[in-house]
């Protein structure tokens, strides 16, 4: 409580810094698990995850265009907006009420993101296996790899913030064949919803990470604040 580095007194400035450094050194072993390095990781990995989310958003925009063209009309028509069918609920929906979503804790939101992308990734991989054209397959697998990176990245953010990884259905939700659509049209409808949900999720995740970024300040500041606490 003595440490007031930013005291206005010019004579007390050097003294203050000295005291601060001493206090910091003294408290160094007492800092919980030397949080400074982890905090540094959290801030950075949140930024990276945010960047990756924005990149995926951009990537999906072009991919979705190509893929919907591949599905053919009416899927590539701009006004195509079918009601969400019951079976499309297999894909995790991002259409949760925004206030409800904001009311969640960071942990809960991150866990929801993590679960959603893990499942979306599984469906996307099934999709990849069915596509007829090599070029589209290549692009899909590229996107899958990026999305895999996002899942890992969210996992990293969670662990750096000290949250446990959700134990939920990280693996595939079951054999893809079992829940596969009974006909090609419904399969296309699933694909359409998958892309749509992905888009919504990415949009929302970008918002989430941006908020989180502001909440978790840069590493150096964190260190000082925490040190001041002692």
């Amino acid at each position, binding site marked *: 409580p003595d440490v007031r580095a930013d005291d206005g007194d010019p004579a007390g400035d050097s003294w203050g810094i000295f005291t601060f450094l001493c206090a910091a050194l003294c408290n160094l072993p007492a800092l919980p698990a030397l949080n400074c390095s982890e905090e540094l990781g959290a801030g950075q990995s949140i930024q990276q995850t945010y960047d990756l989310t924005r990149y995926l958003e951009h990537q999906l925009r072009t991919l979705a265009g190509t893929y919907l063209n591949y599905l*053919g*009309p009416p899927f590539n028509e701009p006004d195509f907006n079918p009601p969400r069918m019951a079976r499309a609920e297999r894909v995790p929906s991002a259409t949760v009420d925004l206030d409800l979503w904001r009311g969640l804790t960071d942990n809960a939101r991150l866990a929801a993101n993590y679960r959603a992308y893990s499942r979306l990734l599984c469906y996307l991989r099934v999709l990849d296996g069915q*596509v007829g054209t090599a070029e589209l397959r290549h692009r899909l697998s590229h996107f899958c790899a990026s999305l895999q990176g996002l899942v890992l990245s969210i996992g990293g953010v969670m662990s750096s913030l000290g949250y446990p990884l959700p134990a939920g259905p990280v693996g595939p939700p079951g054999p893809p064949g079992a829940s596969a659509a009974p006909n090609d049209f419904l399969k*296309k409808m699933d694909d359409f919803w998958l892309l749509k949900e992905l888009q919504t999720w990415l949009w929302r995740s970008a918002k989430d990470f941006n908020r989180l970024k502001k909440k978790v300040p840069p590493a150096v500041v964190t260190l000082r604040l925490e040190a001041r606490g002692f």
Partner: protein
Amino acid sequence: MWKNSSLRCLLALAILCLRSLIYSQEIGSLGDPQNLKCVTHNLQKMLCTWDVSSRGRRGQTDFCYTTNDLTPQVCFKTKERRVEIPIPESSITVTIKSSGTATKEFVIHQKDISFVPITPHILSLMPDFPTSTLNLKWSDNGSVFPYGLDALWQIQILRKEPMEVVTQVTYYSKLTHEDVILSWNWTSDMPLECTSHYVKIRCYINATQFVGSKDWSDWSPTEVIPGKDTEPGESGVFPLDPVVAVGSDLTFCCVHEEDQRITNMTYGSKSYTMMQLSSRSHAIRVLNANVSNSSGTNVVCRLENAWEGSVVFVGYAPDTPQNLSCETPNFLIIKCTWKPGRPSGLYGERRTKYSLFERTSGRNVSCEVSGLNKDHVCDFPVLPAQKTYDFILGVSNPIGQAKSSLLVDITQRVHPKTPEKLTVTENNSTSIQLRWFINGSFAEIRLLCQLEISSSHSERKLQNVSTPGRKSSTYTAQVNELHPHTKYQFRVRCSDADHFWRWSDWSRGVEQTTSEAPPARGPDIWRERSPSGENVIVFWKPLSPSESNGIIVSHEVSCYLLDMLLEHKVVLEPSNSTEIKLGKSDCVISVVARNNAGSSPPSRITSVELPSDNVTTDQAVAVGNGINISWDSYPNMTCGYIVKWCHSSGSEPCSVDWQKFPSNTTSVVIKSALFKPGVRYNFSLYGCKSMGYQLLKNVTGYMKELPPKTAPNFIVEETSSDSILVKWEDIPIEECRGFFKRISSFLCKGEKDALKPRLSESGNPELKVNNITDLTKKSMKILDLQGKTSYQLELQAYTAGGLSPPNSLYVVTKEDSVGLIIAILIPVAVVVLLGVLASIFCYRKREWIKETFYPEIPNPENSKALQFQRNICEGNKTLKTLEMNPCTPNSVEVVETQSTAPKIEDTEMMSPAAETTVPEDGSESEMENHVVVSYCPPIIEEEISNPPTDEPGGSSQVVYIDIQSMYQPQIKPEEEPEIDLVTTAGYKPQMQLSISALKIEGHSPVEEELDKTAGYRPQANTNAWNMGTPDSPGSVESNNENASFGSPCSINSRQFLLPPKDDEDSPKPINTAWSFTHFFQNKPND
């Protein structure tokens, strides 16, 4: 016979008529049985029925029948009104007696019996939804008939609400005295799911022996295949995900809930018109379907709040694989390749699949082919102890299948893999060994390998090596006859030696440079005595790469005199000559080339030069690409001739070149890439004797003669009044560039003038031309010239190549002095003589002269003085002073410079012809383009003196309509004051002047003044012009906007009186002047 039968028929008809008459009588009696009808279903028994009256309905009926008189009558009692009795052969007599009625007798002939087969029953009706096929099964009931018969079955299929017959077919069968289950398939053009399909059947048996009437059976009970539209809660588009061939006609239907309204149905992106099948089913028909895209064509049914769909895959049946070819690269697998032909247009699980079946072994391999490659490849394992393979390549997709077959002996279809690991090792400078590896077991065949040997200075060479094949092993080959110190590239490819099929690809190339060897021969040498004669210079030519066998590092030059070494010298590269001090003695010179591997054999030459007499010098010019040198045969030249020349002419040390020729040669053509046109070369022909070399002849030659570079330099050595002596120098050999033919001089009168053309080309008739062909002459005298005249002299040199540029000089001949003296003296003498003669004449006649010109008493008439007076009065009118003419006094008006310009304009504008009007256009933007009509400076003066509050004059109450547009200008509220003023600036009729003038009198003295001018007044409200004056705050920049109006218009003609050009040109300065005035006048106010 025919007649007979027809007669019988007639008889029977007559009897029938008679009987019917009887029947009718019977019918007449009430209560009697009547209308006996007999029908057979099986041609063995018949069922007879009859009608009775109400009285006879109760109780039993006695029924008796007899076929003929011989058989006893059969009788039985029955309560029903139908009996089953056998069919008679010809006729049967029936007696029926109901209780309480009379006995009635009927005779029934066979022809009265009708034959109606039993109503068939559908045993089963099975739908196959994916193929939209119905399978119908029924029994033919053949066992009921005593003998085989032809049967016709009519099948009817119906659908829709209300039912419509879709199809009706007739099916033939033979009845074989036993019950047979018949089966019939029908494929619907509409998916069976779309709506219910109904099926019924009836039959007709063509019993030819039966004479009675035959009829179709009744229709069987209808069997139905219910459509999905009958199942509650069922919806969707049908057929579901079909795969069809291109060009098919397709029907799709949309089954939905009863209460759902269907919006539209699309196939791909196109909407189709729907037909209603039932209240829950609608269909569309797509004709001639095109190839679908890779994910299939979507058939979508859009309902009010749902989407239903199906995906149709339209493609082609697989093409027959073409160019099927199988070969083995290694005797482990067989690679079969083929061209797939037309793409099927189907992808994913519906793609075309290939399988390779080998008939001998019965082995089947399914092929995974990627659609990307043009050629498809499939591997089949090589089977032990099997050489011949009978392949069938099967191709299939959901639409169809195809196949292609190939019988192949793989020992004759060996296409080895690319040789790998090619290495090279050197044996010596001319021989290397190559090693390479081929993967595969070629133990059963011989391999033929081809080595490619290439180097930069030799042609590509191919060397074939045949070697017994081994199992995955390394092969070697030796390459000889290589050249030392040469960089070689080697590569190798292999094939089957016994049955050539295909070469493998070339292996990766390897490079090897062979090591050096001693030079193959001694260098070509020549020697020459130095100019002093003390030394001998030895020259040698460099060896070609093929002869040097390495890099020549030095030449060793030795000098022997009778096996005694006089001198030994090592000359390092790149020198190609050396000097040996020999004095006056001679020796045998030996030169050896040396590289890192060793020395060449020595080349020898003697330094002895035999004396030669009368050596001639010839001239030679190249014919073609070489210089021809010929000589007479010298029989004593035993060891040939040598032609030696220098590559550079002139004083500098030249690089000596030479060529040797055998002794029987008398003419040679010397060629060299170094020979250049216009350069003089000196060739020396030496003859070779055992004793030494003898100079035989010199030849001067040119590759090509060119015009001389310069003309000879010359000077004029002597000049006289009629001749000049010109001397010139020789042209240097380098500038001569050919053999000198002649020198031409051109002489012509002329001053120094740079622009003069060349004399030789001017064609001047006075041109004097002298040609000097005697080249030893170095001077020339030109005679017959004029004295003291400027001459232009030009000299040009000629070779066979042409003439040189001229060298020109001006020379002035000396003058002729005698002629000059005479020319001066004669006129002087004449003048003196005349003077003397005049003096004498005057002296002699002096009295007469005095009387005539100067008498002592002068004559007044002849007085010069009075004459002079009169001339003055008449001749000069300007001296008149007292002339009284009426005079208009001139007046000078002093005007201020600022107002001068407007004043002038005013008079112009106010001329009665210019009855101007200003378009009453309120828009500001247009006003910008308009021209300023400035009236007169007093206005301006007044305006400045008037405060702006005076502006709204009385005339502004009247709104005048624009003559041209005839509309009242719009007035925006915020712009109202301004617009008001502008509108008053419009046209005003000239005749109402007095009234309006009176009204405004008090406000604008300017207008008052203007009113006085006869009938004309300005068409613009001058007050308005003031809007833009700088004294109104912030209006400096708006000057132009307010001060501009349209072109003045005539009232009568509505034509612009001032041409548009004037609008632009003349009024503009007025505007500037006007605004300028204001600017200056208002400056103090600011």
